[in-house]
């Protein structure tokens, strides 16, 4: 049943909690606690990363079935069980989460000076919840992880955030909670309807057509806020701006993917007809998101806010890809999600490097950084180019596939997505020019130091990944090709069956 002979997914999921428990038990002076907390957190997350690499090696990309499955009875008479497993769609997100967490801990090494112990505990709990959410194959378990992410993130933004952190933390929490509770009702309906919350078993059931619409909108309420889609994206810029750097990285890198993952995992397979019917609505919202937030990004004065808006635009491309229901679109969406996870995370880290030194995120505060910090400028440029979608770098493959997929559905949607890429080039280059080039207008900038070894260590894996994803996409695409093909096939079969029934 299990390819490795031991409960690998549970281990990956819950090991961070063990680390958090060890950190909690550390005693001593504040400095000692802080140092120990950092090292324990780093080692825990590295061990988790190593364990998750087993997934990379042992995962069989030739099948669409769930792998590394684990089952435990939890509430057997209710049809709820602890069921974990990954397929091609989720496995890379598990890896993304486990890869970003150690980088985030490294990025917080010096930036977080107060209450380090609590910070590291929050981060490790967050890792557990993220990984668990991508592995969960039971709807109730999924919901538990999906919601539980809010608690550590709320604290990370609220305790270690910027000046308006309280507002941002509350907005983040309440926005996402409001969406999620509606999804909870839909889950309860599905539970009652099917008598089980086991996701593979739910896939076998046909949800009545009339209910599909309601459930679709309940899911949309939750996932659209998480993605975030226009017009419920407004919590994201606030949360990003106020969150500490590592919080932004996780937020952009993993948490935003949870919404899109929800669409892929639940909306499409469970509600094929409603998804098909409301795909135009999603297209409209996504194209508006892509164009509107790109324009908004052009006008931003704050670096983090700019990148936050660019995230909304990129996620718009992802939702377009998901609702094309074809192989290219879905693969492109998945690829864009992964690439965006790496690249936008890296961009937030780039901002964090400057912020740690100057304590300002205002674009006008900078200028001529390329002369002072050449290596940094190089790294920043690489990720800027990746974000724009330069061929040979990570984002290009995904966005290109989405546009191809969208073209097959509706050329205008493809045009909207392409417009987003053009605007993306505009705001990112504009940002880069203002920060890196030009004359050095402020004398205090001259004293800035270039990247430290620790920062090199953070960026090196991300640079490697960005290049790898751009140059040889097949090594990632091959993971989810079969799963996506199965998803497309099932979707078409369901629509065909519905059409037959309607005739």
């Amino acid at each position, binding site marked *: 049943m299990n390819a490795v002979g031991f409960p690998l997914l549970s281990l990956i999921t819950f090991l961070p909690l063990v680390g958090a428990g060890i950190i909690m038990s550390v005693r001593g002076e504040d400095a000692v606690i802080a140092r120990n907390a950092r090292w324990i957190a780093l080692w825990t997350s590295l061990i988790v990363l190593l364990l998750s690499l087993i997934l990379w090696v042992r995962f069989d990309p030739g099948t669409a079935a769930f792998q590394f499955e684990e089952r435990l009875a*939890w*509430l*057997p008479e*209710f049809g709820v069980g602890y069921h974990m497993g990954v397929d091609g769609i989720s496995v890379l997100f598990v890896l993304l989460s486990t890869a970003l967490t150690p980088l985030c801990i490294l990025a917080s090494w010096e930036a977080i000076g107060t*209450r380090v112990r*609590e910070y590291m505990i929050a981060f490790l709990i967050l890792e557990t919840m993220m990984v668990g959410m991508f592995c969960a194959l039971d709807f*109730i378990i999924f*919901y*538990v*992880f999906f*919601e*539980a992410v*809010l*608690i550590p993130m*709320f*604290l990370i933004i*609220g*305790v270690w955030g910027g000046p308006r*952190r*309280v507002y941002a*933390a*509350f907005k983040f*929490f*309440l926005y996402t*909670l*409001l969406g999620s*509770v*509606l999804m*909870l*009702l839909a889950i*309860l*309906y599905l*539970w*009652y309807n099917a008598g089980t919350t086991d996701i593979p078993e739910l896939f076998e059931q046909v949800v009545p057509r009339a209910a599909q619409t309601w459930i679709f909108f309940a899911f949309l309420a939750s996932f659209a806020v998480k993605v975030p889609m226009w017009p419920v994206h407004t919590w994201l810029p606030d949360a990003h701006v106020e969150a500490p750097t590592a919080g932004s990285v996780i937020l952009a890198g993993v948490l935003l993917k949870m919404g899109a993952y929800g669409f892929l995992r639940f909306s499409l397979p469970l509600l094929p007809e409603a998804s098909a019917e409301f795909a135009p609505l999603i297209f409209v919202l996504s194209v508006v998101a892509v164009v509107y937030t790109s324009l908004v990004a052009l006008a931003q004065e704050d670096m983090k806010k700019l990148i936050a808006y660019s995230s909304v635009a990129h996620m718009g491309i992802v939702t377009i890809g998901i609702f094309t229901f074809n192989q290219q679109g879905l693969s492109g969406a998945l690829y864009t999600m992964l690439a965006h996870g790496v690249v936008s995370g890296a961009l937030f880290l780039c901002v964090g490097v400057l912020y740690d030194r100057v304590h300002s995120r205002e674009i006008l505060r900078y200028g001529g950084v390329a002369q002072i910090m050449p290596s940094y400028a190089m790294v920043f440029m690489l990720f800027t180019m990746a974000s724009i979608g330069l061929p040979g770098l990570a984002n290009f493959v995904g966005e290109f596939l989405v546009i191809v997929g969208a073209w097959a559905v509706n050329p205008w949607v493809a045009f909207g997505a392409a417009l987003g890429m053009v605007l993306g080039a505009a705001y990112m280059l504009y940002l880069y020019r203002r920060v890196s080039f030009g004359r050095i207008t402020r004398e205090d900038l001259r004293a800035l130091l270039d990247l430290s070894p620790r920062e090199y260590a953070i960026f090196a894996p991300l640079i490697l990944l960005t290049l790898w994803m751009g140059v040889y996409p097949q090594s990632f695409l091959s993971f989810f090709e079969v799963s996506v093909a199965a998803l497309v096939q099932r979707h078409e079969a369901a629509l065909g069956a519905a059409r037959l029934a309607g005739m």
Partner: protein
Amino acid sequence: MIWTLALPELVLAVSGLVILAAGVIPKRDTFFPVSMACVGALLLTAVLVLGQGEGTALSGHYVSDAFSGFMKFLAIAAAAVGILLALDYNEKEGLARFEFPILMLFATLGMMVMISANDLLSLYLGLELLSLPLYVIAAFNRDSGRSAEAGLKYFVLGALASGLLLYGTSLVYGFAGTTNFDRLGEAFSVLESVSPGVVVGIVFIIAGLAFKVSAVPFHMWTPDVYEGAPTPVTAFFASAPKVAAIALLARVLLGPFGDLVAQWSQVITLVSLGSMIFGAFAAIGQRNLKRLMAYSSIGHVGYALMGLAVGTDIGLRGLLVYMAIYVFMNLGTFAVLVSMRRQGRAVEGIGDLAGLGRTDPVTAMWMAVFMFSMAGIPPLAGFFGKLYVFLAAVQAGFWTLAVVGVLTSVVSAYYYLRIVKVMYFDAPAGSLDRAPSSLTLVMAGTGLFTVFFALWPAPMLAAAQAAAAALLG
């Protein structure tokens, strides 16, 4: 007539009297030994409850089944913890008189009589036996105007509620000719023959009991009494009597009036909706923690009643699970509230918690756990309580209740989060005194339950399932 069936009640009553006598005789302060003896008596009673047989006794006035066992166990546990919470507080506030735990013990006896009532008269008897000690302990801090006001307010409104209940009882008796639950059930099994007067009687009975559980629109006393009464008393009010009154409401409505579910379900639905909405919005502006907890408890009763409004066994199971979880997280929260002292003086403002995350990380962590749990955030226990009542509402097609329920839970999340915010995001406003070990013990116990409930929910669900099955037959 097998009076031995009522052994737990008899044992508790006798030990209460013995402890009372033992407490009076010595000349010195006997608060602590009497408290311990009361806790011991409660534990003994709890053991007896666990081993209690099933059946009716005392000419059909008394019933014992899985439902009464579940609820009694909960009420006794809450009462025992309530006595523990008062130990340190009463010493410091000069309220350490031995009558205090004994009054709580007799209130618990009243709860047990209520829970096991199988007749409208034994119901009333139990209710009054519960209420009289509560009136006294609400005003236990005699030198405080607020405490006296709380006691008086509670007494006047409680008397009114008792009057409503008695009036409803007399109406039902007038139309059915009996007060025994079993025979009432038989009398109302033919729906056509049920006169509207009975329905009016039921509404009066519901009103009387809704007062005890502080459900909207009979909630007005709650904030004032909660704020005015000594904090351990508030903790007790918010937990044990609520369990008993909810149990009673469930037994009355689903037992003798079970066939009239269509009549009373609307009333309970409205009460539930009102409580959820009022509890969510009225708490937002509060600055006093005890007042906030009063509104929060109104909201929680609304969620619990959702399970009753549905009127199915799944709904009842949800109600039972909800109450069980609520009692634990509520006692935990109040353990934190009781422990709040600055330089020896009790404080109760939300602002007094400022920076607790830094000055006392352990207490702050438990408080945060309870707040997130009350807001219904998984994986904490409060989420599962909500889950089961929402499930019942969705299954029975009570969509209005379910949707309003989840939306108000988001609204109420705001004020629970505000407490977390004050503790963790705000700068410390001077540190609070160290919590005494009796309170940290309660915090840790209830906190661990709240955190780890998700791992083994099956035993409690099975117990609740059996209890629900016993009531619905």
